[in-house]
């Protein structure tokens, strides 16, 4: 009798996809909710720090070493550029899932007791940094050389011109790509299940395993990913539109002279 009651609470073997999805969602609502949150914040924190890293990488890549610079500065810049180049190459040429394993188990074996979430964020940061570095480099190079010259000719330093003139324009150009990177990171958090980050993929595996309903369980998270990304996409489109600015301008009529 009791056994029958338990069974009757499930949609049963003939239950439709929708019925099972609804059942799993209800039964594991707390887990799915917390997993969605984990997915979201791992992606957000990882992406934001990754962007900062990416900008540093991109700016480093665009530093021009002049023949006239003093030798110490030249050597240091060369070393810095080398480190950045090697880092960027390694992280772009290996799969994220493998990076996750290497970083997580590598650190733990060397007595750095990093949590799986922290390791997950670290993987996303390093990945994003490597890819964004390239995007930012391209973004900076796409800004006409004259923009910097205009600032230099007034007495600004290269760094000052970079921060006030070039980067603001470059950022505007790479905003769509930044949005893409964020979306991609949000979905790529799924590979972090291999190091035990309790994000959506791992939850689906757990929930699906309990009833042997993998199709339904993954369908649930597919929809969660879809909704999440859809909303973010709309927000990004709005931000992009905002940064474009107005097409018209107001004439300062007080300065119009009658002639």
């Amino acid at each position, binding site marked *: 009798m009791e056994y029958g009651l338990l069974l009757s609470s499930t949609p049963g073997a003939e239950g439709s996809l929708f019925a099972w999805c609804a059942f799993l969602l209800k039964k594991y609502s707390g887990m799915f909710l917390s997993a969605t949150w984990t997915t979201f914040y791992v992606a957000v924190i990882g992406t934001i720090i990754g962007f900062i890293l990416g900008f540093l990488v991109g700016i480093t890549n665009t530093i021009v070493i002049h023949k006239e610079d003093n030798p110490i500065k030249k050597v240091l810049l060369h070393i810095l550029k080398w480190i950045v180049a090697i880092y960027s190459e390694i992280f772009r040429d290996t799969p994220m899932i493998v990076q996750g394993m290497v970083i997580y188990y590598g650190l733990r074996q060397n007595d750095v007791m990093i949590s799986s979430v922290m390791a997950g964020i670290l993987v996303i940061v390093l990945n994003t940094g490597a890819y964004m570095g390239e995007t930012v480099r391209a973004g900076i190079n796409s800004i006409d050389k004259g923009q910097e010259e205009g600032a*230099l000719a007034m007495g600004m330093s290269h760094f000052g011109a970079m921060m006030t003139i070039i980067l603001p324009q470059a950022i505007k150009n790479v905003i769509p790509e930044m949005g893409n990177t964020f979306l991609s990171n949000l979905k790529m958090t799924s590979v972090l299940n291999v190091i035990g980050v309790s994000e959506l993929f791992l939850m689906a595996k757990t929930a699906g395993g309990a009833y042997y309903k993998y199709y339904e369980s993954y369908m649930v998270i597919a929809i969660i990913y879809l909704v999440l990304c859809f909303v973010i996409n709309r927000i990004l489109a709005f931000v992009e539109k905002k940064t474009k600015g107005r097409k018209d301008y107001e004439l300062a009529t007080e300065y119009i002279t009658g002639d």
Partner: protein
Amino acid sequence: MGEKIIDVKNLVKTFGDHEVLKKIDFSVEKGEVICIIGSSGSGKSTLLRCINHLETPTSGDILFHNEVVKNTQKSLTKYRSCVGMVFQSFNLFDNMNVLENCMFGVRKVLHLSKEEARTRAITHLKEVGMAPYINARPSQLSGGQKQRVAIARGLCMNPEVLLFDEPTSALDPEMVGEVLSVMKSLASQGLTMIIVTHEMEFAKNVSTRTIFMDNGYVVEDESPEILFNHPKNERTKEFLHRYMEAKVS
């Protein structure tokens, strides 16, 4: 004679194996309006860019009030804030509107107050007839308007010398006039200017000294009356002759 502002000494500039400037010597005095003419590739733009160190001279020196301009940021900042530059491609900052463009250097390089920057910007924008457009972005302006804003931006720094690198070459004929007339009025106010140009009429009528450059050398450095009417050098004659021919046809 007036007070010497800039002295170019033994200036050589090479790009790889190509020697663009070959031992250039000349000086600029206060109040002079110097036009540099010559065919494309003669080195005139490079000379101008070397004068404000956008190109680092390969050898030789630029002296500003008898002091060598060193290739350090501190020295360059001080020097460049006194020597403005107007470019062929305007180089207005695309991420700022007209007013912000003009205030930028006053705030960031001269470190003056916002009010002072604004006052200067409005004054000089009025001077070039662009004050009504303070809220416009560079992309919303015509070439001639952009160049006038660029000139106002240069003037806001209160420079001792203003350098012009082919300021009208990127403009269509209708807009050349409005820029030249602004420059003419600046010349009449006594602003020291060095102008690289292909506008021969302007050079002839406005400059106090005209320099003809060819193949990396200063070939002739004369008053415009002499240079245009009685050129001494064969190459100068040839160049002016070709120019006159082109104008007739």
